């Protein structure tokens, strides 16, 4: 009997974070694909506050919020640790995980908007990338050092989803000549076997996101044509 179930969605970077964590630790689990416009009753039961995926169910215990799930996974299955053991290094890791959560939103705003709002989001995103490259990554190969850890996982969306957004919107953010270290990180991250084997299909993601942007712009009351 599979004790671990993950309610997720193939296209969600948040869902993928949990998949990566489970796979890196070799934890067997059952994947339950949720249809986001039509969430199952279970999701509403397991996550009544946010009604979102991913939700990890271990035994009968539901855990919500991807980064909280990853810390839970790390504490429950200690092999291949995703967080450092030193409290100060752990604090640094948590600081950057929070940064990823707080600042990632600007790129999403850029994706769903146009005109002045998009320009503002673009500048915010570039500022964040600068900070991440200089203060977060520095000269390390991965945020976690020689191996990927929770911070790499938290920034994992930049390795695929960011490029998709850049292509659809026609705005370049993470350019190699502007952010050489972060750019190299995206390449290195995607080469990690567990990550490489567990990324959504690029073309399908592109199609899906194209539709999302069209909807977002079409329903925006501030857009004029």
């Amino acid at each position, binding site marked *: 009997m599979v004790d671990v179930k993950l309610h997720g969605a193939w296209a969600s970077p948040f869902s993928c974070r949990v998949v990566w964590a489970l796979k890196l630790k070799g934890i067997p689990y059952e994947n339950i694909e949720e249809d986001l416009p039509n969430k199952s009753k279970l999701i509403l039961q397991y996550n009544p506050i946010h009604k979102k995926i991913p939700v990890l169910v271990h035994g009968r215990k539901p*855990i919500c*919020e991807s980064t*909280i799930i990853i810390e*839970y996974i790390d504490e429950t299955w200690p092999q291949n640790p995703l967080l450092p053991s030193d*409290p100060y290094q752990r*604090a640094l890791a*948590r600081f950057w995980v929070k940064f990823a959560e707080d600042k990632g939103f600007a790129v999403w705003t850029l994706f769903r908007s146009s005109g002045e709002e998009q320009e503002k989001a673009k500048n915010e995103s570039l500022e964040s990338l600068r900070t991440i490259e200089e203060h977060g990554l520095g000269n390390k190969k991965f945020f976690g050092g020689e191996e990927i850890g929770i911070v790499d996982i938290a920034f994992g969306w930049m390795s695929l989803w960011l490029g998709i957004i850049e292509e659809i919107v026609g705005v370049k953010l993470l350019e190699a000549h502007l952010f050489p270290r972060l750019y190299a990180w995206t390449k290195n991250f995607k080469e990690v076997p567990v990550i490489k084997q567990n990324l959504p299909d690029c073309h399908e993601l592109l199609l899906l996101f194209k539709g999302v942007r069209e909807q977002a712009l079409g329903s925006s009351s501030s857009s004029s044509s």
Partner: protein
Amino acid sequence: MAEEVKLFGVWGSPFSRRVEIALKLKGVDYEYVEEDLSNKSPLLLKYNPVHKKVPAFVHNGKAIAESQVILEYIDETWKNSPILPKDPYGRAQARFWASFIDEKCLPALWKASWPCEDHEKVKDEAREHLKTLENELKDKKFFGGETVGLVDIVANFIAYWLPRIQKATGAELLTEEKYPKLYQWGHEFENHGVVKEKLPPSDKLIAFFKDRFESVSTSK
């Protein structure tokens, strides 16, 4: 070797007060530095270069920013009087509620406390979150159970700052009538022997909020 424990904060900030509460609960001696946010010290900018905010915490030369990150560091470093449960599921639950309070509750409560567009709608959202917390509290004395824990500390704004904003502005969000458990919890928290030593002076805080209310109300 003398241990260096330093906290950069602001007297009225619930975020820097969180760190003080945790340190006091664990009996950790620290040096406190009061910052002037309109004129931040070079040390603060050095210790929190990314956000340039308080609180910034320094332990033997190592600097940490973000109050919840600092709280977890404190809990892992000084293991007496733990503020998080031992079991991973309990810890996940505590982190979930702490995150809910900071990401959803506090922004909504703050916005609802001052005049704004769609004020009723904003107040409704704040009330919904208070209801969620009321339901989560159930019959526990504290969110942490019998003792003050991470969630209680993170909810300090609701226990102490919010009632004083209400006194200053006449806003009525958290009332005993609507949220009896949460109201009682706030009372317990505010009067907790250790916590109460690390809360800002009541009159000073109310005066601060009165000033803000006046300037916000007349700036239209």
